């Protein structure tokens, strides 16, 4: 039997081209396996082989969606593979969205099976989990060793059109499709086991999770913006020069609150970014590009808004858990409320 032909998609970082400063890298195709493709090759054994690897920068992909999709689909088409694999992207947001987007496009255009992998909190997971098989991974590349065998095993099954088991068996993120299988123990025993664990305060996994529709209804519009106090908040990591509170460049454990009374313009001498997930050159040169204090002050002076709130709140969105972000924002939203702020402009990189 001939080997299954695989085309693998990775970003500029995993291809060894470089970090954020190379995130604008345009799509290219290389022969054979590159970076994490080597581990996949090992897991495939003699069953499958990566014939080509497509590499594309995360920023390039997300900022040039139509062009990037078209270029990459043409590359994949010319290689004529049996399956397309992207990532895994772990908790890298733009990479995850790129992997999901390109997998969906390849599936639609070329009608071949596709797989990717990511951490459950990656925004790409929520966007694509009901459209694609996404192998559940840890939140960093340290999870490569667990992810690779699951990706390889499912890839071979999909190409050979073997039945795919439930998410819990195959390791993909639940995709709202129910697959029947036989449990080893009967329901009454499993229920009592779960109850005993719960009573003992031990962790247990429900077999019937409630759907999580966490949506918030929009608030009413600001009636009179000309008299409103408006605050600016960012996940782009803008901090006073020197990062006095040492907000981490990724997986932030805190947010900053800084007074901008009398500040009319952010300059390279006074502000910078602490964010480690995008090329910091532009924000360090002029932080108004992320936290627009200069124009908000103009608005204030011209009477377009009532007042720019004298404090801004900031954190680094890079790899920061949903739980931490929620906790930060719950805290500072209350402060904004107490300070009678009427509206917020939140900027993200």
């Amino acid at each position, binding site marked *: 039997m001939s080997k299954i032909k695989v085309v693998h998609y990775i970003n500029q970082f995993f291809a060894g081209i470089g970090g954020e400063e190379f995130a604008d890298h345009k799509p290219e195709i290389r022969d054979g396996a590159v970076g994490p493709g080597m581990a996949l090759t090992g897991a495939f054994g003699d069953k499958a082989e990566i014939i080509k690897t497509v590499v594309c920068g995360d920023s390039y992909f997300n900022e040039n969606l139509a062009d990037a999709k078209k270029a990459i689909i043409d590359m994949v088409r010319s290689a004529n593979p049996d399956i397309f694999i992207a990532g895994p992207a772990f908790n890298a947001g733009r990479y995850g969205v790129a992997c999901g987007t390109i997998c969906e496009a390849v599936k639609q255009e070329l009608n071949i099976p596709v797989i990717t992998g990511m951490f459950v909190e990656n925004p790409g997971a929520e966007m694509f989990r009901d459209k694609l098989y996404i192998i559940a991974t840890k939140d960093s590349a340290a999870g490569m060793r667990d992810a690779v065998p699951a990706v390889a095993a499912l890839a071979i099954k999909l190409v050979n059109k073997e039945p795919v088991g439930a998410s819990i068996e195959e390791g993909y993120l639940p995709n709202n499709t129910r697959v029947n299988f036989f449990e080893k123990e009967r329901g009454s025993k499993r229920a009592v086991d779960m109850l005993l664990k719960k009573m003992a305060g031990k962790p247990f996994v429900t077999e019937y999770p409630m759907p999580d529709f966490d949506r918030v209804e929009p608030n009413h519009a600001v009636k009179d913006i000309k008299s409103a106090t408006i605050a600016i908040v960012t996940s782009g990591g803008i901090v006073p020069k020197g990062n006095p509170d040492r907000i981490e460049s990724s997986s932030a454990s805190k947010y900053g609150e800084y007074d901008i009374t009398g500040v009319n313009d952010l300059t390279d001498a006074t502000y910078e970014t602490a964010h480690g997930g995008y090329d910091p050159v532009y924000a360090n040169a002029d932080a108004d*590009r992320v936290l627009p204090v200069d124009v908000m002050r103009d608005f204030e002076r011209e009477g377009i808004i009532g007042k720019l709130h004298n404090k801004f709140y900031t954190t680094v969105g890079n790899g920061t858990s949903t739980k931490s972000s929620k906790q930060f924002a719950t805290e500072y939203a209350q402060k904004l409320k107490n300070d009678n702020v009427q509206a917020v402009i939140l900027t993200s990189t």
Partner: protein
Amino acid sequence: MVKEIERAGIPVVHVCTVTPISMTVGANRIVPAIAIPHPLGNPSLTPADEKQLRRKILTTALDALSTEVDGQTIFEVK
């Protein structure tokens, strides 16, 4: 973060480049930005033009805050 601010009762507009992420996260008022490393700027413009661009995006953001919305809405910068 955008949801927690909204939940606290303060109208909020999310200015960001990758709007599908903002939709997934659950922002209600969304304004598309320029690029990931410089959402409210463009280093290839002159400083004056760049500030004008930032002003345009923020004017759209203020319009978004002044507009009643029924669900998630993207306000394109004019």
